[in-house]
Structures are given as C-alpha cells and as structure tokens.
C-alpha cells in the first residue's frame, strides 16, 4: 500500500490540467506543480512500492534506491527549470507534452521491472515528439517523423530483448542484464538508441535543433539521461561500452567543431558528453558508477543552461547560425555571462560543476590503467573546451555584429530567471560538491580540489586556449549540416522506393499513381503535417464534451424540486431500486 507518491505520476496527472487554465493562473500552476513534484521526491524512502500483480507477474511500479533517487532529484529540478524557461509558451498542450515527458522519465528511473520501464519509455517517445511537432515548421514535421521512427525502432529492440530475457529467466525484474544473451544485446541496442550512441546517434542533431525553444531544453535532459540510467542499471562493466563511449566522445567533439548552427553544436555536444558516461559505465565499479551519475547530474544542469542560452539567442535574433551572428556580447550581456558559466562548467574548469564530476570518471579510468581511453577522453575534454567555451563565444558573442545581431536583446524575464537558476546550481555544485557526493549510489572518498588536479586541468585547458588563439583563422565556418549516420536510412529509404517504383511501373497506373501520391510526393508527409494538435481541434472536442455535461446537469437539476415529499419519495424509490438490485443478483 502506498506510503509513497510517485513524483512522475504527479507530473503526468497535473500535465493534463494545464491546457484548461489560462494566463497567470496557468503560469502559477506550472511552477506550483513542478515544485510540488520535487517536494514529493524528497518524501521518498528507499524500497520497492506499488507492486501490482498483473497476469501472475509482479509489476514493481516504483523501486527507490540511491541510484534512482539521485536521477529522480535532478530530473525534478530540471523539470522546474525548463518549465520556468517555457513559461512564455502560449500553447497549453506544449506544457502538457513536456510534463508528461518529464514525468515519464521519472517513471523510467523508478521502474523496477521491464513492463513498467517499457511503458514509460514509450510514453517518453510519444510525448517528446510533440515538442518537435509544435515548432510547426516544414522541416520540423519531417524531423518529427524520423524521430518517432527511430524511437519506435529502439522500442521494438527493447521489447524483443525483454521477451527473450523473460523466456530465459522467467523474471521481469529490471536488474543487471549483460550482453551474453541475444536478449541482452537487443535490450542494450534499445537503450543505446535513446542514449544516441553510434551508429544510432543521428536522430539527436536532426531533431533537437528543430524542436521548440523550451522543448529542446526538456529534450536535452530526459531521453539521453534516462538511457544512461538504464545502462548503469543493466550493463555496468560491459567492456565494449568503454570503446563505444570513447568513439562517441571524440566523434561528438569533431562534429561539433564542424557545425554552424549553435543548437546542432549542442546536440553533438550531448553525444560527446554521453560518451563519457557510456565509457564510465563500461569501466564499471563503484567509483566509475559514481562518476557517471555525478556527471549526468551536472551535465543536465549545464547542458540545459547551454540550450537555454542558445534558445534565447534564437528567440531574439531569429537565427542560430554562427555565420549570421556576432558581437552579441554588448546586446545580450546577461545571456553571455550565463552562457559562459555553462561553457566553463562543461569544460570542467575549476570552481564549476564539471570539474567536480568529470574528474571522477577520469580517476576511475586511470585506476583501471586504461591508457588509450584516458588519453582520448583528455583529447575530448580539450575539444569540448574548444567548441563550447572558445569557438561559440568567439563567433557569436565577440567579434563584429552582423545584421541579425542588431535585433538582439536579453530575453524575457522567465527565460533569464531559468538560466540564472541553472547557472547558480552549476556554480554551487562546483564550490560545494559534497552534498552531491552524498547522494551518489556508493560511498566515496574523492577530493577534486587538489593542487595537482587544478594545475593539470588549467594547463590542459590553458594551452588548448593557446592553440585556439593561434589557429582561430582555420575554424570551420561553413553554413550547413554534417552528414551523419542517418544518411543510410534517409537515402537508403529513398533508394528502396526508387527501385520499388521501377519494378512496379509495369502494374496498373492507378496503383503506381497511388504509390506516388502516398509515398513519393510527400503525401504521407502531408498527412503527418495535418495531424496537428491545434488548439482549435482540441478546444472543439473539449467544448463538445463540456456542453454535453452541462446539458445533462441542467436536466438532472430538475429533480431537486425543493418539495419535501418529493425528497422522501426519492429515498423510497432509491430503496426500492437497490432492493430489487439485490434480489436480482442473489
């Protein structure tokens, strides 16, 4: 019996109320709900709760332990910050989608068995796709379509894997899995899709920059980090992940250096940082797991901050392309400072959050004497510093103003406030890491602020800065996008369709014409486009239903005649009816 309250359910239930509120009431409620969810989180104690017995299996709806709690906390905090950032979003259903998404991520984290995990996993996918759709631009519709296909694929891998595992072990408990079985490998694939690991990474830079401003902030937090959590829980110590993580880290850095759209840079940055986490999971052991968890915690905060800053730039200037921006430092000073705090945090500069968290992973890798991984991760760290703290500020905030920059100003108060909160937390974490260390799953005796560590970090970054200064003329400044692993399925699909058309040309004209209309002329895409969750459609349905109940109410109230004998009669009639019901049944 619940002595607990699932914070994810609180968010999901509350999410559906939002579209019916307006104005300041809605804004107040959004903050109230997300803050309330955080407080609910603090009331959770370790244990397994809400065990439902469905179909002879134990479905453990809520499993609370140190690992899931720390993720739960940072998810709730992130939900508050991202909601404050999107307070100026007028469309109620956007908030609903975002909160269902956040609540489902919390649901994933507290899931104790495969069924619960899978249900919330799918919820996350289907709610987050709205955050892309609601951007309502042509490319967003297409990106949303690809997004949902990729995630459905990931979900299929998951469910197939779970099924195989269940057939072997007859247990649906979500614990250590390992890749020694086909089922395990499939589940790993499913998790890796959400974690945006190569080669399943392309959906991230494809979709995040095409989501709404607030939506991208939400998305940067929940999908990848809940996948990280799942990987920790199920695949700790799987060696192949070390190399996969390193590839992700370096790949992300290189691609980020090449990109022109700030939000695409950030997307590849996510891949890079998640690479650190994946590598850490591969290393395994208490210190590594602590490091991954801590890194995920601080990453959520500074990546959210960076996305918020990028979103602010996009909001006020109308573009996020570095080739079209410059000199924003004078017009958006506050945003600039807050951005830099995020940039310094991700670069693991002392006094900021990244310094006290990324170093744990490094230490864990070093203790296992993994030389090449260590070196490559160091390379990636330098690279991160380069593109986040150097290249972007250099091209966007410093330098000369371009036409788009003239429109810039610091963004609305709610966006700034959200960034301030995130930045404040980054700094606080950097200065006082102990509270976070206390939340980590394993006990740990780690002291990040040693002279040696500070000096080596400053040297690494300082000389990287030197390299940047000397070579800044050779920075890639080409507008456009990178070709990523999605080329296979984007062109592959097209190639397949081309072959199919050639083969089927011999058939009836009507059939091929239909085929063309549906698949080739983008008719399918039109269908997706017209599947809009417009305020108009929902309002129409809601009004219709509401009118029905109002009419019913008007009709029923006539029973309340005010006449005493009528009331007494109603009691007698009621008695009679119930009596008859009784005799009918027995």
């Amino acid at each position, binding site marked *: *019996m*619940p*002595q*607990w*309250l699932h914070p994810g*359910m*609180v*968010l999901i*239930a*509350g999410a559906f*109320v939002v579209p*019916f*509120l*307006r*104005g*300041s*009431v809605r804004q*107040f*409620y959004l903050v*109230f*709900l997300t*803050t*309330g*969810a955080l*407080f*609910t989180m603090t*009331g959770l*104690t370790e244990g397994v709760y*809400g065990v*439902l017995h469905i179909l002879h299996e134990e479905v453990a709806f809520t499993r609370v332990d140190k690992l899931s709690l720390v993720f739960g906390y940072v998810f709730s905090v992130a939900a508050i910050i991202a909601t404050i950032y999107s307070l100026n979003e007028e469309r109620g259903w956007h908030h609903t989608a975002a909160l269902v998404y956040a609540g489902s991520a919390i649901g994933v984290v507290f899931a104790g068995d495969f069924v619960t995990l899978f249900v919330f996993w799918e919820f996350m996918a289907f709610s987050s796709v709205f955050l892309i759709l609601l951007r309502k631009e042509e490319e967003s519709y297409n990106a949303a379509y690809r997004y949902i296909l990729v995630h459905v694929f990931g979900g299929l891998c998951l469910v197939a894997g779970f099924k195989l595992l269940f057939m072997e072990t007859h247990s649906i408990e979500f614990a250590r899995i390992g890749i020694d079985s086909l089922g395990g490998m499939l589940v790993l694939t499913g998790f890796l899709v959400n974690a945006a690991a190569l080669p399943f990474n392309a959906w991230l830079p494809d979709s995040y920059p095409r989501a709404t401003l607030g939506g991208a902030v939400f998305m940067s937090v929940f999908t990848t980090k809940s996948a990280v959590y799942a990987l920790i829980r199920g695949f700790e110590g799987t060696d192949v992940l070390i190399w996969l993580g390193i590839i992700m880290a370096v790949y992300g850095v290189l691609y980020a250096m090449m990109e022109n759209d700030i939000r695409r840079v950030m997307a590849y940055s996510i891949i890079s940082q998640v690479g650190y986490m994946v590598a850490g999971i591969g290393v395994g052991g208490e210190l590594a797991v602590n490091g991954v968890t801590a890194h995920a915690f601080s990453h959520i905060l500074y990546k959210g901050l960076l996305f918020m800053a990028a979103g602010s730039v996009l909001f006020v200037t109308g573009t996020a392309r570095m080739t079209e921006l410059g000199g924003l430092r004078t017009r958006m000073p506050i945003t600039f400072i807050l951005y830099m705090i995020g940039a310094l945090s991700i670069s693991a500069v002392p006094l900021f959050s990244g310094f006290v968290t990324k170093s744990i992973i490094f230490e864990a890798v070093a203790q296992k004497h993994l030389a090449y991984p260590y070196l490559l991760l160091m390379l990636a760290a330098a690279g991160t510093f380069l593109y986040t703290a150097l290249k972007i500020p250099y091209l966007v905030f410093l330098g000369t103003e371009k036409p788009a920059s003239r429109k810039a100003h610091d963004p609305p108060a709610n966006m700034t406030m959200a960034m301030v909160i995130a930045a404040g937390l980054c700094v606080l974490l950097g200065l006082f890491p102990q509270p976070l260390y206390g939340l980590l799953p394993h006990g740990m005796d780690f002291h990040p602020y040693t002279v040696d560590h500070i000096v080596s970090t400053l040297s690494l970054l300082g000389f990287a800065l030197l390299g940047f200064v000397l070579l800044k003329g050779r920075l890639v400044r080409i507008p456009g996008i990178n070709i990523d692993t999605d080329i296979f399925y984007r062109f592959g699909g097209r190639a397949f369709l081309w072959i199919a058309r050639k083969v089927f040309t011999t058939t009836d004209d009507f059939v091929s014409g239909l085929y063309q209309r549906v698949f080739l002329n983008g008719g399918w895409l039109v269908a997706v486009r017209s599947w809009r969750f417009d305020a108009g459609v929902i309002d129409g349905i809601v009004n219709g239903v*509401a009118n029905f*109940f*109002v009419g*019913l*109410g*008007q009709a*029923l*109230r006539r*029973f*309340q005649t*005010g006449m*005493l004998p*009528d*009331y*007494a009669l*109603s*009691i007698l*009639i*009621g*008695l009679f*009816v*119930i*009596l008859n*019901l*009784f*005799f009918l*049944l*027995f």
Partner: protein
Amino acid sequence: MMPGIKDILMILPEIVVAVAACVLLMVEFLCRKGERTIIGVFAILTASVAAAISLYLMTTDYMGGVAFSGMFILDGYSTMFKLIFYLATILSIVISFYYTREEGIKGGEYYTLMLFSLCGMMVMASGRDLLTIYIGLELMSLPVYVLTGFLDRDKRSVEGAMKYVILGGFSSGILLYGISIIYGVTGSTELTAIARAFGEAGGLTPVVGLAIVGLICGFGFKVAAVPFHAWTPDVYEGAPTPVTAFMSVGPKAAAFAIFLRVFTEGLLPVYEHWQVLVAVVAVATMFYGNIVAIVQTNIKRMLAYSSIGHAGYALLGLLPATNDGVASVIYYMFVYLFMNMGAFAVVVFMRRASQSGELIEDYRGLAKNHRALSLAMLVFMFSLAGIPPTAGFVGKFYIFMALVDKGMVELALIAVVASAVAAYFYIRVVLLMYMKEPVRTHLTAESFGVGLVIAVGIIGAIVLGVYPGYLIDLIQRVSALV
C-alpha cells in the same frame, strides 16, 4: 460485567465533551448579554482537552480494549476519526465567531450544540454495537438539525432545518428497521457477534437483504449518497455557512466511520452481497454530484453537490474491504477536512455587509485586488478537483491504488472520468476569479480567526499533497480493521 474504572477512563474524552456541553449550557445564563464568544472559546478548549486525552490514550494499554461489555471500543481507527472530529469542531467554531457577529446570531447554545454533536460523533466512531452507533448517530444529528435552522429570519435556513429533520427521521426509521432485522437474524447487535453469525450461516435470506439495504439507506442518507442525497443542497444552502462547513466534514466523516466499521467488521462475511450494491451507489453518487454541480450559481449549493461527489469517491474506498481501502478512506477524510473547511472559510470571509459571498458571481475578478484570498481559493478548488500536487490528488490516488490492488481497475477508471467532469466546475471558479474583470469592489471580512482557518486549510491541502507519507503511514499502522 460491571463497568469499572477502566471503562470510565476509556471513554474519558466523551465524558469530558458531554459534561462540558451540559455545563456550558447553563453557563450562558451567567454571561452578560453579548458575551457569547466566551462560550465558544470554552468549547474550543473542551475539544482540545478531549483531543489531548484521546492522543494520550493512544499510547496507553487501553488501546484495542472494549468497554461496557463490548459496546465501545477504543482503537486507532476511532482515534483517527476523532482527530478529524476535533479539528472540524474547532475550526468551525473559529469561523463562527465572525459569522455569528455578522449575521446577528444570538444564543450561546450554538456552540454547545456543536459540542453535543461532537460527542455523538465520537460515540459513533467508537461504537461496536449497532445500538450504540445508532444512539451516537442521533446525538450527532439532532443538534445539527437545530443548527441548520439557526438563521431564524432566513426562510431558507428554517426550511432546510425542517427538511433535514423530517427526512433524517425518515431515514433513521429505515435504519432502525434494518438493525432490528439483523438482530432478528443473528441474535445480537454487536458487530463481532453479527459477523460470527453471518459467517456460520450458510445461505442468505431475502430478509437479510432488506436489512443490508436498510443500513445502506440509513448510512447513505448521512453520507449524502445518491439516491439519499436530496436534502443536501437545500440544507447546505440554507444553514449558516460555518454550520455547513461543520456538517460537511464532521458528521460526514462520522457517517463514513460507521459505514466502514459496520460493513467491514460486521458484514464482512456477506461481502459479496453488498459489494455490488455499494459500488452502484458509489458510481451514481460520483456522477450525479459532479454533473449537477456544473449548473449551480450558488457556491454553497455547488459545494453541496461537490460534497455528494466526494462521498462517491470515499464510498469506493469501502469496496476493497481491505486495510488499504480503510486507510485510504480515513486519509481522504483528513484531506477533505482541510480543503472543504478552507473553501467554506473563504466563503465566510466573503460575507460582509450586503455581500453574501454565496453567489459564484460574487467571486468575479477577485484576483485583481485580493491576491491572497483568491490564491487560497485556487488551492482549495484544485485540491477538491484532485489536481496534483495538492492533497486532493493524493487522497484520490490512494483510493484508486487500493481499488487496483484488489483488481477493481474499472472502478478506478470510472472515478477518474468522474473527476475529469468535476474539474470543470472547480476550475471555472478559479478562472472566474483570475481571468475576468471585477464588476464591483469586493468586501471581505476583517477577521483573524477566519483567516487563520484559511491558512490552516492551505497548509493541510499542500503538505498532505507532497508529504503524504507520515500521515498515511500512521493511519495504516493504527487503523487495521480486518
């Protein structure tokens, strides 16, 4: 077995309240004209002392013991309910101070009547014998009938009291009829004996069916379940608002206390027979209450129908007949205490001079100039609607979990739909306050007491919404019935 000192100690809280009420009745003559507040203050003191004694008794060995040959039981279940009663009484009296002044209600017996009603409720919660329960029921109800008609110049008040008395007597009669049948069939009116008798008996005779239905009618009337609810809107609207607040929380909780105990302890062996009936009543109650509330223009009437709707949810908690279900109903009563008291306190706060505060239209644009008050009402409305992160959501959630655990998922889903319908009229009030322009200046009470009750309500509605753990844990530990 002769009653001994142990028995007296176990019913000490009831004795305190009853004696104090009698004393206060006479004290009024000693008071100067217009000094009636002092009686109210003493009433609050009495309730507090009784509460302290009850809590103390919880820590002693008397817990779980029966007194007076098994007619009275002192257990965690009854103590939890008594806590609700004490709080309801105290909070109602606090808002009464302002209201009686404003409405010109004279007569210190107002507070004394509340104390008598409190005593009746306490007897009901601890009753282990159908007759004891019945006596408690009457002791609780009669003062409430009188209190309903206290606004003797208001036609609605007097009319409401009349209807309440007559219909109350009517349903009381049916209840007694049911009790007598049970006595005839089982040979006892004591709950455990009844349960034993039903357990041994093989089949079920139609006569027992009559009895069960009679009990459902009698208890259902007090709980305001459909179709025994007809008195509720008129009585709630007519009675003085603090009395409405009182009766919507205290007597209703007491009615649930006996409903739960009789059906879960006494009638458990015939569970399959009453389960469907109660389910039907619960669903009808939920929907009827929520749907008709939509078209109300008087906020007290709206809250009356809302009360009916909530009784429906609480009745659902009766169905699993598990300790989880019982605990969820008790928790719901606590939650309901805070949010309903708070809402009515706001209504009282809006009662000033010519502004009655009873029309929903009176709240138009309230947020413009009265931020705190409208915020308070927002919290209460959201909590009544069951919107997270308030206590109302948690209360419903626990009931749903108790249902789902016993496999009654469809009922939980039906309740969710009913909540969605209800949300409409609660949110409508909130939007009216915040999104519309005020058409007149709002007058509000200048009363510390009413403001205090509102504050208490908010604290309860929010704390129980984000930290339910402590209270639900306590309830579960002490109130096992099966």
